[in-house]
């Protein structure tokens, strides 16, 4: 079967267009969080006919990169591109096979994409910083016209960055997924295990940034509450989460009242 039939090529262009638009929400316009992996992943998957794959990829990447914060001049990894790209590669590259190994493999490949997305983002930001000078109106000119043009071209450049990256990187990803399908079954099985373990790494990344302690007291309270009520008493998942959150909230209020 050819990797790049007409439908796949159309899908690549559609994903590049949609990914470019979703990516604008990241820094250029809105920031309503549609660009976050937890939303961008399922949106891409839904567009390609497999929202669940997008949701799995989105959740995992969200956990891993949520605390990669754009503070000051630091340019974090572009988790939107990682999520959209990995989802498209997993959906288009699995072609009716068991999806979990391809999901794991596409998630692993995102590691290689991180430096490219960071460099592209840094370059675009530098490019856009020059636009402020270009926006200054000259005497006699209709005030604001240059500013509007510069502002909109800044947004367009952000779109183009993502669009071009998808057009270049998606075919490479699909070739890699095709080669992956020829690897031994054990290797493919290892990628299923990889997917199952990644949420633990994601939780570790968040805990590391939220608390100065490794074994944080509140983390352990949540764990013990869930293990006791959820595993021993067999209460429902969301009920357990609600009890853990409420117990913590009461504890926080009690501590506030005492201090």
């Amino acid at each position: 079967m050819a990797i790049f039939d007409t439908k796949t090529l159309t899908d690549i262009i559609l994903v590049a267009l949609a990914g470019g638009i979703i990516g604008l929400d990241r820094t250029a316009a809105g920031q309503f969080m549609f660009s976050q992996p937890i939303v961008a992943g399922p949106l891409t998957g839904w567009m390609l006919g497999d929202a669940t794959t997008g949701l799995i990829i989105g959740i995992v990447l969200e956990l891993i990169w949520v605390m990669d914060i754009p503070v000051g001049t630091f340019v974090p990894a572009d988790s939107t591109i990682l999520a959209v790209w990995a989802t498209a590669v997993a959906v288009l590259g699995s072609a009716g096979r068991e999806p979990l190994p391809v999901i794991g493999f596409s998630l692993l490949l995102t590691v290689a994409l991180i430096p490219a997305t960071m460099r592209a983002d840094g370059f675009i930001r530098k490019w856009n910083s020059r636009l402020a000078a270009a926006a200054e109106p000259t005497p006699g000119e209709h005030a604001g016209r240059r500013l509007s043009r510069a502002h909109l071209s800044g947004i367009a450049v952000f779109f183009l960055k993502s669009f071009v990256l998808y057009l270049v990187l998606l075919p490479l990803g699909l070739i890699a997924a095709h080669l992956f399908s020829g690897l031994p079954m054990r290797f493919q099985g290892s990628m299923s295990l990889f997917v199952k373990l990644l949420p633990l790494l994601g939780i570790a990344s968040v805990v590391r940034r939220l608390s100065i302690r490794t074994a944080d007291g509140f983390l352990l309270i949540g764990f013990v509450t869930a293990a006791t009520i959820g595993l021993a008493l067999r209460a429902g998942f969301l009920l357990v989460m609600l009890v853990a959150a409420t117990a913590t909230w009461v504890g926080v209020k009690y501590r506030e009242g005492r201090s």
Partner: protein
Amino acid sequence: MQTLGFAYAMLPALRRLYPNGDELTSRINLHLEYFNTQPYLASFILGAAVRLEEGRASGRNRDADVRGMKAALMAALGALGDSFFWGALKPFAVAAAVAVFLAGLWWAPLVFLVIYNIWHVGLRVWLLFLGYESGGDAVSLVAAFNFTKLARNLKIMSLSLLGGILGMLPLWRAEFRLPVPVAGPFAIAVGGLAATLGMVLLLRAGGTPAKLMFGLAVVCVVLAFLGAV
């Protein structure tokens, strides 16, 4: 990008306040000076800048220091907003959505969007008006909304939720259920907690998420070839 965005957002007000072309040009140029802060809290500065420009244009406050106000507020609000929105609210919304997803429900992204945007949109609108009313008085902002305290509480709630998620590891949705048939649910949960804390230690020792992802993949491949999977 924020410099341009801020000037662009000011444009309708400036056009209305300064019908004279030369003065308008000069005010646009002033707002094209470097500006960078937390994008949501920029609403407060935007409201304040409109108020000061109004005073200046009407002659009530010809010496209004818009440039000074922006410079004074952007660093402080940047730090405050970064730690609240990126460092506390976002991880909390993610933790809640992940719990919903691992419970087997598909609407996790909606949970994330609703939790985050109720705060985000609400604060963005409110801060615009507060900035306008206060004329950029940062004390009024801090008095009206205790970002630091709320951020601390949200972080605590996130940690508790993440702990709860780890405690429920044996009951995660099928795709993430670990293939350990001989171990009981408690052993799996404790093993998951130990593995997570081990990864926290590795991250604290200088590891990055990308390096750990790669390392984890290598471990999985080795386990698979040893026949453990």
